[in-house]
Structures are given as structure tokens and as C-alpha cells.
């Protein structure tokens, strides 16, 4: 068995905020309407950011859970065992990305599990498959290598403690020749 670290790669330039990933996630996992395992938000510079659990290298949820309900699989996916969860909410507070969500129906925490049942069948996670512009992809970050990729972008929470398994292609500033500058 090889140790992997599956992670999402998000291309800021390609996302236009259609929310297809968020809807596909909800559809695939049949989560409650208040539970958002994946969230699309608008950043200050009018670009979009689609974030779910980042299956961190040092997951805070994993560290703070008093019931030891979290595990990290050999492929890097952080999973929560709902049988062990007591719904204390410590993981929800601890996660800087707001990944674990409180489910009012089960009164427990739940979170993205990177659609591992789909992955086990050789399919990509639902959010990745639904992304029509391929702004969201997923790779094994232990072997994937691209010089244009960066670890974080403005608007993404501090990555220092948790080392999230996500990489970004930052927005490239483009020259828009058809726009006249305002001071002329």
C-alpha cells in the first residue's frame, strides 16, 4: 500500500461561481439544507473560492476530538466516524476552513469525505465531476508537481498549523485593452 495525499486543486481564474460543485455535493451525499460540506464564496476581488474539507496534513479536527472519531486514511482522506461522534462541536470550532458541519437532524458533526465510495469505484468526487470549467480537480499531492501552483491565495484562511491538502492556481492579471482607464 502506497501512502498518498489526495487533495483538491482549485484554479481561481476558471471558477465563475456557478455553484454546481456545491449542489452536486449536496445531491451526492443527501445532506440537510443547512449542511454545506462545500461552500462557494465570493472573494474581495470579485473572484470565487470553492472550499470543502481540505483533508489536512495536520487536521485540527482530528487533534481536538475528545472521542477520537476522526481518522486519516492511507490516501490522505480525513474521515469522521459518526458512531463515535457525540456532537460536542469542538471540531467545528477548531477547523479554520469551517469544514465540519453540525447536522441538526443527527445532532452530530459531519464533513466532506472526498466521495471515497466514488473514488473506490474509480470515479472522481461529485464536485470535481460537476465542475464544467475544470476549475476544481483532484490529484495526489505527494506526486503532483506544477510550478504555477501555490499553497494559498488571498482570502484563504491561515494554512500554517494545519497544512491543508489543497493547491491553487492564482488569478492572473490580464490586460483589458477595451477598458479605458478612468483618469483619462
Amino acid at each position, binding site marked *: *500500500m*502506497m*501512502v498518498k*495525499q489526495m487533495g483538491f486543486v482549485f484554479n481561481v481564474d476558471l471558477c465563475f461561481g456557478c455553484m454546481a460543485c456545491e449542489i452536486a455535493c449536496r445531491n451526492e451525499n443527501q445532506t440537510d439544507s443547512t449542511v454545506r460540506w462545500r461552500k462557494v464564496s465570493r472573494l474581495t476581488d470579485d473572484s470565487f473560492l470553492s472550499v470543502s474539507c481540505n483533508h489536512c*496534513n*495536520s487536521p*485540527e479536527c*482530528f*487533534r*481536538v476530538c475528545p472521542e*477520537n472519531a476522526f*481518522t*486519516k*486514511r*492511507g490516501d490522505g482522506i480525513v474521515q469522521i466516524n459518526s458512531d463515535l461522534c457525540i456532537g460536542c462541536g469542538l471540531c467545528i*470550532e*477548531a477547523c479554520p476552513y469551517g469544514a465540519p458541519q453540525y447536522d441538526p437532524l443527527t445532532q452530530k458533526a459531519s464533513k466532506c469525505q472526498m466521495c471515497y465510495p466514488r473514488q473506490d469505484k474509480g470515479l472522481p468526487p461529485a464536485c470535481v465531476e460537476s465542475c464544467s470549467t475544470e476549475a476544481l480537480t483532484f490529484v495526489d*499531492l*505527494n506526486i503532483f*508537481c506544477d*510550478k504555477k501552483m501555490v499553497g494559498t491565495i488571498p482570502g484563504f484562511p491561515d494554512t*500554517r*498549523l494545519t497544512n491543508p491538502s489543497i493547491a491553487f492556481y492564482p488569478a492572473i492579471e490580464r490586460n483589458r485593452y477595451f477598458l479605458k482607464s478612468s483618469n483619462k
Partner: protein
Amino acid sequence: MENTFFVPDYLHDLLVASEKGLKGICVELASLLSFPVILTDPLFNQLATAKLVHEVEINYVDNQYREITGDKPAIVSCQLTSDGVQKKGICSAIILDGRLRGYLFVQIDEVSDETITRIHSIIAYASSLCSLELRKRLELKQERQQFKEAFIYDLLYGNMKQKDEIISYGNIWGWDFTQSHTIIVFSLVDFDYYSEDQKHIDSLFFLIERVLIESNLKPIAMKKRGEVIVIYQMLGEEIDKNQNVIKEFIQRVMTQAKMMNMNTRIATGIGRESTNPEELYKSYQEAKVAYEVGLLLNIHTPFFNGLGLERILYKHDLQDVKEYYDHTLGNLEKFDQDHGGELMHTLEFYAANHYDVTKTADALFLHRNTLRYRLKKIEEILDKKLDDMNVRLNITAAFKIKQLRKI
């Protein structure tokens, strides 16, 4: 069929002897040639020998090997020292997948060039057999390493919940998980995946393994992106002594890393000791917190045990700690900004010097009375008495928040 295919007996004997590994090949070759045979790795560390009377040192090998690119072994001359006497030898490189994996030496005495030429091909054949044997070993090592990594990974993330299971798995590699262990994380600061850093991590990993072996410990270590994690076996029971042992180990690693110009980029963190292998994952997470806090506070060897207040403040809600800081020191900071004063700086030094006026005055090169005047001013601005224990605690915590770069 007109041709008769004839395989000489000695080739067959060598092939059969190869079943006994490198030692078998050496013994068979030595008995065939009646010369001592030495098999070494690329750094001339002996792997197997046969027919040796005295210890042999390899002095010199003809540098033709630098030009070797193919898989075919070439034979060159070399010089050996046996019992202080210089002797002639011939040497064949063991090449595997185009990479040098070792050398096969035959110590010859004064023999004619004709004899040397006659034994060339048998040495080349033995060398090829050795390369096959080394390939087997390498594959086995890689296979073992994969299983090892998967096991260590499961330990680090608490995926194995049965103590007995962990102990019996550990026994496969000779690791005793009935003893207590602690996790030490070595990390390369500002690790850049796309630069030479991956090679640096490889070197650091081998260096750490070597230091552990030198300390008579079976290395339990794995590489992960940007870090090397060591599960360090604690032999003593006293925490103070164990901390000293760990400090010494880290110092040795750093000294060796200095030779490779890596020491300035390596930072460490040490988790708490755990007697229960199921709970090693906690020690790992603690080691990472210790590493991060150690970097921020400039602590050389940060033990999670020794962190105290910082470990609570570090993970606390950012907005909450910001409000706490503003509530405690906000007025003083504002006063300094409006009046261009140094009262914050003074108070920081006063807190750092354990609220001792004499020590702070010395540290700031101030007269005691000037310092007293400033402290009185600070008390007025904050509307608090600085000799109150609770006020001091609040101020110390607020400065720690600042140090942790939360503000």
C-alpha cells in the same frame, strides 16, 4: 542440431552458489580462483569476503569507472593493503540499472598479465550474479519500506486502535512498542516542493537514520512532504533525563546537517512521551504544534510539555484573542501611537524581566527613577495597578499573543 551447447561446470557452480547470497558467490569465486575475494558497496564498506587472511583496505581504484555508462561490468586494476603490505588487485564494478551499486575485488599477488586476462570473464560473470542478488535485496528493501511507511502512517494518524496489533506489527521490524515513545518532527522551513528541497529531505532522512543507528536504536522514521517524523524510543523513565537524551539526539542531527549546510533551515518539535502506542498520534499532533510555536518564539528545541500558555493561545479563536489583546493593552498602544512614546516597549521589557525594576532598568539602559516614572504613567493609562498578580498575568498573556503573531 549440429551445435553442442556447453556450459562449463564452474559457471554452473557459481550460479548454484548464488542461492546462498553474496557470501555464497564470494566463497565460490574465491575457491575457483584461489585468490581472496571482497565485495563492497560503492563507499567500500565490505558486504562479504572470502579467503581473507588479514583485514584488507582498498587504497586505490583505477578511475575508469567514471566513464562507465552501460550495464556491462568492466575490469580495472586496483591497489589493496593487507596487513600493512600493499598488494595488487583487480576490480569489477557492480552496475544495476546504470547505477553503481558496489565493487567486486579480487586480491591477486604477482601473477602474469596473461593469467589476469584469463580470469577477466569469470569475474565479470560473478559481478553480474552479484548485481542480480543486489537487485533482489533492493526490491525487498523497497517493498519493506512501503509496508513500513503504511504502518507508521497508521500509527501517526491513530488508524490502528488495538495495542496488541501495533505491538505485533512492530515486532516484524524489531520495534518494541511495549516501551514508551515520543514523536520528534524535523521540518524544512519554507519547504518548496519544486526546488531541490525534496533531495534535502531525502538526505535528512538518511542522516537521521544513521544517527539513530549510531545511538543503538532501530530507526522508526518516515518522510512526508517537507518533514521527517521520528518515533523515538525512550529508554529511561525520568522525564528530565529523557528530555536531555532527545536534546542530545537533535544536537547530533543538527551537527551532521551543518556539514550539509542544512542546519539553518531545519526546525524541530517534540511531542509528549506516550506509553500507549495507540495514542502516539496525539504526540505527533503535539510535536507539530511545538514546531510551529517554536518557530514563532524562536525556541531551538521546543518540547510540547514546556510550552505552557502558548499552546492554548496558539490555537485559540483569532477574533477572541485580538479582542483580549485590545482590552488589555489597547489603550497603551493608542497612547504610544498618538504621542510617539515607548511605553509599550518599556512594559514589554518589564514583563520579560519578571516585573523586576532593577533588571528592566539595566536591560533598557534607563535610570530606575525614569523607569518608575514610566511605569506610573502606564498604570495611569491602563487604569490598573502593575503590582497586582492578575494584571501581570493578563499583560504577560497579551504579549505572548503578540509574539505568536496573532496581532
